[in-house]
């Protein structure tokens, strides 16, 4: 369950291969091991998962996509993306080091 108070970061040893010419990003999770293809939305969320809190994640996502997306819409998309990325072992909750 996505929380705006929790902090999110990429998992260890992840390999990320952006393919901007096709609007996708490949992610290899060596621990599993699996290869995933992220769309631009999930790719942006992944890029923003640098240890910041969920609330800041939504703010940054909304800012990137403004004015097409409201903050509420951004919250909905980030919630879905983070849940999916967590299930795949691509991002995880981390302790707040800020």
């Amino acid at each position, binding site marked *: 369950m996505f929380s705006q108070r929790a902090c999110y970061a990429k998992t260890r*040893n992840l*390999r990320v*291969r952006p*393919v901007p*010419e*096709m609007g996708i990003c*490949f992610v*290899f999770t*060596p621990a*599993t*091991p*699996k*290869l995933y293809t992220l769309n631009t939305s999930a790719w942006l969320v992944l890029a923003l998962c640098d240890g910041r809190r969920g609330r800041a994640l939504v703010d940054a996502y909304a800012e990137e996509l403004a004015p097409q997306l409201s903050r509420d819409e951004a919250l909905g998309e980030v919630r879905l993306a983070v849940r999916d990325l967590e299930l795949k072992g691509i991002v995880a909750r981390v302790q707040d080091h800020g």
Partner: protein
Amino acid sequence: MQPKFESPPKITLSITNTCNLECAHCYGDCTKTPSARELSTDEILAFIDYLVANDFIQIYIEGGEPQFRPDFDRILAHCGRKLMTLVRTHGTLMTGRAARAWQRFGVGRVYVDVMGAQARTHDLLTGVPGTFEKSCTAVRHLVDAGIETDMLIIMNRHNVGELDAYLQLAKSLGATRAGILRLYPLGRAKHRWSELALSAQEQDDAIANLEPPAGLGVMQSWHPKDRNCCWQAAAVTPFGDSIGCMYLREYVNHGNIREVPFLDTWHHAPLYQMLRAGKVEESCNGCHVRSHTRGGCRSTAYAFHGRWDAPDPFCSTLNQGVDLRVLPTRLLRQDPQPAGPTGT
């Protein structure tokens, strides 16, 4: 519009042309002892490092039989946690211990060649009695070790009547998917073509009548799924030749990685660029809608028509009356000269 990679994220590496079997359908004309031209262990490990440094994310390792190389575990250990690692094997050298080691190395998926639903068919095609049981056992070992495993079958006259039984077998062994592959006129297969090949209609009927069990994925590339994969194709032979796709092994050579960096062949070999551009004479709308590519497989198009932009006769809408049971005589010449780096 043809999809396009600025640089390839995935590659196929054939690490040997050696094998312990005598398959009728062998595309590599494999031998028991390696050629002195095969890439050494150090060369392969260095090439894997090159791939990682250049942002590749997946490697598909095949042969020959990869496990027939004594250094195969070392190769797997080197790439398993750096690249999504896929392996194609016939599995006859697999043990439970080896499967568990592959899992520890980080192998992500294994494709096991099983050429029929029964021992009689499979062993006839591999030329070695007892191999059906070994290949099936390999699937069980790999599944038990927790590795995603698929089974592959090259559809031909000997096994076409048992495809549904094959799908049931794959399901019972714990395979995730079964891949039904077309027969390519390469290696030993082309010299036994009249024994093995099916007409286009026979192939279409076999695919149309498949009844896969619930929960088993089926991969196949007949209409409307005949893709032109060249746009993303990157492959290197056991001798270091960059050839785009393993099914082009007898037709092209874009340069050797001992002499030029692999990505130089990707960026600069004219034939490689031309094939990736996907310019073809004719395309099937159904296959185009499904695959977003045009013209179907370039290997079989070139094999039967001798032109890189020809339609693929394995697609029923592009067949144009080509009898797939009869090979053009030029393919049966000894040592056909592959096109050079300039595409000449």
